[in-house]
Structure formats: structure tokens, C-alpha cells
């Protein structure tokens, strides 16, 4: 190959190597970039949590009643019993309510559990504001400890009209 050809190739290789390096660096840059994205769009649990905390007391819509059901599972490999205290309650949108679950550590030693919430129908999720929930943080249990866990929530007034009953479900995993 002639000299200008070799030089052109070297230049191209340098540019391509730079592109590869920048792509790789972009992967790392995604961590702060996602934080910015979530902040700006409001998507993501952190933004939702802060909105829920700010929910406070809004006017209660007494003309509408929604049944909220509570259910629980302990997926395979878990060492707890975990169940709601009451199966369901009738709520008005806008009102602050409280529900309780009971968890009992069967692991035979000190352990941690993490509750993962899920709501059906899925489109009710963004209208179900938990102001306080045991699912926000891992829960520590002493050996053989059994205790009540509390969730406080507001079903907001913008809940779509086609929903008269929704279910809050937790899966309780070993931490």
C-alpha cells in the first residue's frame, strides 16, 4: 500500500477507536443521565414517592366508593408467613386510609424481608398513592419475630371511572 493510503487508514482507525471509546463511556454516562431523565419526566419510584408524600389530605370524593382488596404471597424460597389483617375495605377517593399486614419470621434466625407491591388493574397503579409503606425499605426481623406492618394510602380522585375494585398485592421476599 502507498504512503498516503496508509496514512488515511491510520486516520480512519483513530476515528473508529475514538468512536468505540465514546460508546463505551456512554454506557457509564447513562447512570447520571437516567437520573436526569427520571427527574425531568417524573417517571420512576423516587419521583412518585415524593409526590405521594406531598399528597397530604385532599378533598374527599364521597360520591364514589372503590373497594380496595389486600392480598399477599410468599414466593418460593421465602421463610415468612405474611398475610393481610383485613381482606378488603371500601374507600373514597381522596381519603387517607390505613391497612395492616402481619409477617412472621420462620427462618430460625434474624433475617430481612422485602415486600414488592403490585396493583391490579395495572392502570390503577399511578392513582394509588402510598404515603407510608413497609415496602419502601427492607424490614428487619429478629429470630421468630412476628409483627404488624402498616401501609397508608390515598386512592386519588383521578382514578379512571371504569374501576370499582382494585387489589393491592405484596410479594414478600427474603432480603
Amino acid at each position, binding site marked *: 500500500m502507498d504512503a498516503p493510503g496508509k496514512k488515511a487508514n491510520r486516520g480512519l482507525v483513530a476515528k473508529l477507536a475514538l468512536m468505540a471509546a465514546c460508546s463505551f463511556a456512554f454506557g457509564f454516562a447513562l447512570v447520571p443521565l437516567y437520573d436526569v431523565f427520571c427527574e425531568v419526566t417524573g417517571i420512576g419510584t423516587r419521583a412518585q414517592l415524593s409526590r405521594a408524600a406531598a399528597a397530604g389530605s385532599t378533598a374527599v370524593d364521597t360520591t364514589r366508593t372503590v373497594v380496595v382488596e389486600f392480598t399477599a404471597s410468599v*414466593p418460593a424460597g421465602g421463610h415468612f408467613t405474611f*398475610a393481610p389483617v383485613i*381482606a*378488603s375495605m371500601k374507600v373514597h377517593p381522596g381519603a387517607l386510609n390505613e391497612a395492616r399486614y402481619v409477617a412472621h419470621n420462620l427462618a430460625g434466625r434474624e433475617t430481612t424481608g422485602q415486600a414488592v407491591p403490585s396493583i391490579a388493574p395495572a392502570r390503577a397503579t399511578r392513582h394509588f398513592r402510598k404515603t407510608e409503606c413497609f415496602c419502601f425499605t427492607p424490614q428487619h426481623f429478629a429470630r421468630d419475630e412476628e409483627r404488624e406492618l402498616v401501609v397508608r394510602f390515598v386512592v386519588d380522585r383521578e382514578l379512571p371511572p*371504569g*374501576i370499582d*375494585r382494585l387489589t393491592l*398485592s405484596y410479594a414478600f*421476599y427474603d432480603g
Partner: protein
Amino acid sequence: MSTAMRILKLPALAGVLAALAAVPARADWSLLNMPQGVSVLSREIYDMHMIMLWICLAIAALTFGAMTFAMIRFRKSRGAVADTKMLHNARLEAAWTIVPVLILIGMAIPSVEKLIKIEDTTGSELTIKITGHQWYWQYEYLGTGISFFSRLARSSDLARQRGSGIDPNSVSHYLLEVDNPLVVPTGTKIRLLLTANDVIHAWWVPDFGMKRDAIPGFINEMWISVDEDKPGTYRGQCAELCGADHGFMPVVVIAKPKAEFDAWLQQQPATE
């Protein structure tokens, strides 16, 4: 044709014909189509399926008709001469682009309405939580404390073991029988909550028209109903590969008139 081919021609032809004869001889012609089912949803889905099927058959008749006609009429062996200038026909091409779009819109409109009905779980009178396990179902009547497991019946389980020597045809409802069936009332809109304990499963009864995935850590919902005048036993299966015994965790639902269902529920032991 080579000698080998000549010798083999007749037995080969006989073999093919024998295999083909096996088709009508062995076929179960009653099992050709989707069941209409016993639910308002299953009937609507059946109707949608039949609309689609007829439209496809009509289009097939036209297109296959044209193809077959061309293959016969324009054979070189029949003296056909190719029209090498036939490259475009703007009107025809526009027609066979636009007409299909119109047909598709015609198909889409009824399906929108049915989807909305399927997703509307308001007005339900009973909630049942269904949990998929490897490899059985768990049913819980929400708010009653009644919960139980539903496993493949022992008779089926014994017969299905490799080399069991038991003829599946001698087993009642082979692979479609369980020890504790789910019991539901007829004439009631029932909301089902679906989740799983380990891997993804799916709950399906063809006669109810609906299936939905049961996903570990999440809760899904769907609704079913059984016509008031159709009490009985309805069978289905797990519909998402969930491991070795995916084919061995059937769904059995007994639909009872409301009063009988209430009586049955009263008699169940509460486990919580």
C-alpha cells in the same frame, strides 16, 4: 427414469396413499374448531374468530383461485406465450393495496369493542386469587380465608409416568382431572387475580374464552363468567411453559348454581 426409480415407484406411491388414507380414517372431525364456550366472552371471541376465518377463506378462494387458474391456463405446454411487457397496472396495484386496508379496518372495529369488554372488570361479585406453582394451582376465595391446592389427579399422575403400562384411554379425563377443583357460581361476574410462586404460568379454560399469564411478584387480573344455564365441569391447562411438568397441571372448574355454590363455600374449612 432409472431402474431403481421404476422399481420403487409403485410401493412408494402405495405408501403415500396409505398414509393419506390414515387421515380420514383416524381423524376426529368433531375436534375442528374453537369451542363456543359457556361465557359471554367466549362466545364473543368465537364470533370474532369465525368472522376472521370466513374473511380469510374468502380471500383465499380468490387468491388461490387466481393462482390455480394461472398455473393451468398459462402453461407453456399448452402453448401459452409470455406477455413480457406486462409489468405494471396502476389501478390494479392501487386496488389491491387499498382494499386490504379497508378489509383490515373492517376486522379491527369489532375487535376493539370486544377488547374493551374483556378489560372491563367492573361489577364483579366474587374475587378469586389464583397462584401458579411448579406444578399445581392454588386457589383462594378472597375475604373468606378459604384456600387450597389443586393438583393433577392421582389416576392421571400414575398413568403418565414413563413406562407405566397404564393405557391413558382407561383413565377418566386423562391429564384433565384434579384432586380439588375450583368451584364457582354460574351467572356471576368473577374477577380472577393471577400470580405465581416461582416461574411464569398461565391459567386457561377454553370454555371461558380467556387466558392470562401468572407472573411471579406481580398480580394480573381478568374476569370470567359462566352462563346461568350452564352449570357443569370445565377443563383447561396451564398455558405457559413452566418447567418439566408444564403439561401436568390442569385446571378444573366446577360451576354450580349460586345457591349451591354458597352452600359449598360454607362447608369449606378456612385455612387462615
